[in-house]
């Protein structure tokens, strides 16, 4: 080989191998609230998260949580150790979900910035489309329905071709991420209540400097904080975990399911007229958000709204309603026939009865509206894609032909 050939050859090899090498381990990110804590309060939070949840490559099985981590089954290959299911779920999550929902389930994956609406941040434990009563967590089955059907009108696709056990494993991992996120939020809130926020500590130190005789010193403030943390932390960890367990277990209970007592009122012209009246009524106030023609452009979408929990009150920069994630939120355009949480009458009933979690869609069931009224509204809403004339309903069964009748009587 000539010198030049050798040179070109080694250059090509170097180019081919560039980028090879171990990639960094994935890690769960901390919420911005955790980073607002002072070091003495932040360290125990980080430690608690590591001990109880681990890292993506090193998941911890914590029996206090209502998670099916996968029991050890020594006779089954791949199931020898406890936690096989959550690991299986993690691997599938990394393939199918990570690029939008992020390693930590914070809805901040690499493709997230291209998407509208933004991918869900699970970490506050709120899921929009559930079969459960207002304010409750989703059941496992709710998450499965979303995975199977996707969310029409958003960028969440359908995963209907994944196998049942794969879906189950992913769901368990999503629940794990959600519990981890909520655990972190709750622990940080407790730490904030104990005075662990950096800003508060700085303010107290500054106040103490003004009043030299009776004021607090940096040392006394930190000592107080550390004592409070040391005293409360073990109990706190347990109580937060048992709260989480109660909430998530509650969602699985049949009593938490929203199921109508009356069957769907037949979508007759009368029912549509009643639904229409309710839509515009002071009682249901649908029109305030969903607009005069159901296009999601009601009067409330014209205002600038306050950001919750801010003192002094700040306003959102964007006109219109916002959800608990702080994203602008458009009331659904009911004329398009796109139903994010499912298009069954039952799904629409549940949306009206229990509202949509994390959004401004309130729960009407049980208090404001009775079953018949909800069904009338559902019938009216399901007629909006068809100019309010007919409501979506199954085609009437054709009358059996003469031969079939004979067959039936013959039997």
């Amino acid at each position: 080989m000539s010198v030049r050939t050798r040179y070109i050859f080694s250059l090509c090899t170097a180019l081919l191998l560039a980028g090879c090498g171990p990639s960094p381990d994935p890690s769960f990110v901390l919420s911005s609230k955790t980073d607002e804590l002072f070091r003495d309060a932040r360290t125990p939070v980080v430690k608690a998260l590591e001990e109880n949840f681990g890292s993506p490559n090193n998941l911890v099985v914590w029996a206090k949580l209502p998670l099916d981590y996968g029991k050890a089954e020594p006779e089954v290959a791949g199931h020898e150790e406890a936690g096989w299911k959550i690991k299986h779920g993690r691997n599938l999550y990394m393939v199918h979900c990570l690029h939008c929902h992020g390693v930590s389930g914070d809805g901040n994956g690499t493709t997230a910035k291209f998407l509208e609406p933004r991918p869900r941040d699970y970490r506050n434990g709120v899921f929009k489309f559930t079969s459960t009563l207002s304010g409750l967590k989703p059941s496992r089955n709710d998450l499965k329905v979303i995975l199977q059907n996707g969310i029409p009108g958003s960028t969440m696709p359908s995963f209907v071709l994944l196998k049942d056990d794969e879906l189950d494993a992913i769901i368990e991992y999503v629940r794990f991420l959600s519990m981890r996120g909520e655990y972190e939020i709750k622990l940080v809130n407790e730490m904030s209540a104990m005075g662990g926020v950096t800003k508060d500590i700085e303010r107290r130190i500054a106040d103490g400097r003004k009043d030299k005789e009776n004021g607090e010193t940096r040392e006394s403030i930190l000592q107080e904080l550390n004592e409070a943390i040391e005293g409360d932390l073990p109990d706190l960890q347990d109580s937060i975990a048992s709260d989480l367990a109660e909430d998530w277990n509650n969602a699985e209970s049949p009593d938490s399911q929203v199921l109508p007592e009356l069957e769907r009122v037949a979508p007759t012209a009368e029912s549509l007229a009643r639904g229409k009246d309710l839509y515009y009524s002071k009682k249901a106030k649908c029109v305030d958000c969903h607009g005069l023609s159901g296009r999601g452009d009601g009067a409330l979408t014209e205002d600038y709204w306050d950001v919750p929990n801010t003192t002094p009150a700040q306003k959102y920069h964007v006109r219109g309603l916002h959800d608990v994630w702080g994203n602008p939120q458009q009331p659904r355009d009911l004329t398009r026939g796109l139903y994010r949480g499912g298009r069954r009458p039952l799904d629409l009933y549940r949306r009206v009865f229990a509202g949509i979690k994390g959004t401004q869609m309130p729960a009407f069931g049980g208090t404001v509206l009775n079953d018949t009224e909800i069904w009338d509204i559902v019938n009216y809403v399901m007629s909006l894609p068809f100019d309010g004339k007919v409501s979506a309903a199954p085609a009437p069964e054709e009358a059996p032909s003469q031969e079939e009748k004979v067959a039936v009587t013959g039997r």
Partner: protein
Amino acid sequence: MGKVWSAFFVFWAAAAVGLCWVSPHYGWWLPGEAASPLGTEIDDLFHLILIITAITFIGTHAVLGYVLWKFRTGQNRRGTFTHGSHNLEVIWTIVPASIMLFISLYQMDVWQRYRVKSTFDQQAMRAPVAEVTARQFEWRIRYPAPGKVLKDMPQPDDLYTVNDLHVPEGRPVVIKLRSEDVLHSFFLPHLRVKQDAVPGLVIPVWFEALHSGEYDLVCAELCGWGHYKMRGRLTAEREADFQAYLKKLSETQFDDGVTSQPAEAAEDENSQAAEDES
């Protein structure tokens, strides 16, 4: 060029031919036997063209290898100048041209049946089984209610699924293909059907599944970062099963949580009655 280089160029051509030759035995070839009647004919065309190109490829590379070897460097010969051969030029223009002409005429029949709308099965055209709307990154499917004809606009009794297309087997079926956002391509590899979905157009696509079974439905047009996710499933089944499927779909889709669960509700009542008694 020396001996090494002549061998080098002949080696790659030989390797390509050898690889193609063995690949059917390793399953690196077509995605199974064609599952549609037109697919079989498309495969025949493919094989015919493959044979023609293979003969041409082997012939030209044999000549190339021979020339490389014969006129390699280091033989201390002088080259001769030639202005070319008129006869040879005529031959290697006319022979490929007539092969091309033959192929273009020979495939017209299959192309016409595949793509010319007036030749489609008219009964299937009148009653398309479904509308398939491609979207980043999934296939949204709309069926007419059992016994109804698919309309262009959504109807109150339409049935919806996603990524899961069911069709009856053993007869030509038509789907109406649309796109909601960008270019996609409706590809049924086993049935040898591929058709671009173009935003703003409603394109009828026909195919016939010979046997019941599940087949892949994939997107064959790079449509964005999630292109690889755009996988669906085609299920071909007997007419009666297909009708039953639609009926079940209708029941699920118009479920109100009460009428669909008479058995369960009755059970609950029974158990409550039992509790009351005890």
